[in-house]
């Protein structure tokens, strides 16, 4: 998809994600996980690249999310794999806050 067709879509209200919290949202058919790290929001594919578990059901520590099924770790800022068994990174999305709304670029 080219940048021309991307747009920011309201995904969730910011006060629905406390600091240190993770939420999963459906944005135009894609399941996306959103985290709040000290008031900064990061969004990435909710589906672990290993065996399709939900990363929003995982644990967040600093900027690392750990998948509960098999322990894979990702950097929520870049999607990079920090620990196996995930074979590839998760896609990350840009976020912005508009009023009380958290918007994700899809």
């Amino acid at each position: 998809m080219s940048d021309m067709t991307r747009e920011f879509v309201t995904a969730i209200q910011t006060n629905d994600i406390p600091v240190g919290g993770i939420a999963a949202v459906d944005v135009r058919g894609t399941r996306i996980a959103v985290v709040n790290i000290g008031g900064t929001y990061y969004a990435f594919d909710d589906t672990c690249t290993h065996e399709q578990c939900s990363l929003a059901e995982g644990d967040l520590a600093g900027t690392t999310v750990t998948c509960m099924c098999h322990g894979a770790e990702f950097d929520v800022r870049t999607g990079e794999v920090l620990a196996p068994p995930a074979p590839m990174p998760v896609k990350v999305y840009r976020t912005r806050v508009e009023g009380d709304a958290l918007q994700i670029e899809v």
Partner: protein
Amino acid sequence: MAAYVIVGASLAGATAAMTLREEGADGPVTLIGAEQEAPYERPPLSKAYLRGDTPFDKALVRPLAFYADHDIRTMFGTRVIRVDPSERIVELEDHRRVPFDALLIATGGRNRQMSVPGSDLQGIYGLRTVRDADRIRKEIVPGRRVVVVGMGFIGSEVAASLRQKGLDVVAISPSKTPLFRPLGEAVGQTIADLHRSHGVRTIFEDTVVAFEGTRRVATVVTRKGLRLECDFVVVGIGLEPAVGMLADSGILLHNGVVVDEYCRTSVRGIYAAGDVANHYHPVFERQLRVEHWHNAVKQGAAAARNMLGRSVTYDEVHWFWSDQYKANLQYAGFHTTWQQLVVRGRLDSASYLACYVNDGRIDAVVGLNRAKEVRRVMPLIKARRAVDLEQLRDEHVDLRTLDVRP
């Protein structure tokens, strides 16, 4: 410039090779493996790969090109027959010699074999390698009858996968329950129930005394006199560490290769990691050998750092998972016996946590569909302190806030 040689192109071996490069090894790194394939992860072999749900490529530790790209010399399909610590060489089956300054043994293990009459009939399979998995996959046709011998992790997972593929599965174990030795009767019973609820016929406290058939196995005969008609058999009765090439090396061998908490064998400059390594664990203050994915990754990396002279203690709390049907079973820690089994939730439900407790201290934990709590218990296991067992049992208490006795 030191030469680094790794025997065993396994998950532990490949992880060690990658770590050596990541941490700046300046000499040649050679990865030698008996299997033809580039290093791969074995967990899918009894699950997603066996069922045909994922391709083999997804199991590769790294794509094949990775090794050349990172200046790791690979010798796959190459068997090492001898290690000579005084000459500092490993000898290959074609008698070529590969010199080393630092050597890692990451050879894993071989399946224990059945020795009853008829064990050499066709249609009887073990499962360790991707080739083994491919042989079993060829037998998978819905409605065919399979007997799974052994209800450890491999047997249990194979039984689940084959049942999911619509085969008629009979599973037999000498123990009272599946996973009896690692998890005990109460937890094992829940796994037996899981298999039965999916239509597996389970037979416990009985053993196979013979396989019968003309060329192919057709009947499994048990000590109690059962005759189980079948189309094929999968045997999962455990692993023996692969140490044959070390027989005359002088390296101390006992239930694998004996190493200390720095992954060092009894011979200077020679290390071991993964399934083959009977390692001293500083948390549990004893030697132990485990056959887990997580240990292969973590110990492989730790061994590499020690080969580089970093003196890194390997003290990971062992952890593993076993997916069966839709259930996610996870275990962490180490235990052999226990005074109390402290359960959060109910063992007869779809989700519980069970802690193996000695002297008020959690030695190990198993969770069925409770991954988050298993992870939260791991620091408590490592702390080796008595915890408040009432709080541990109380589902309303966050395990991160549990009172720990000084």
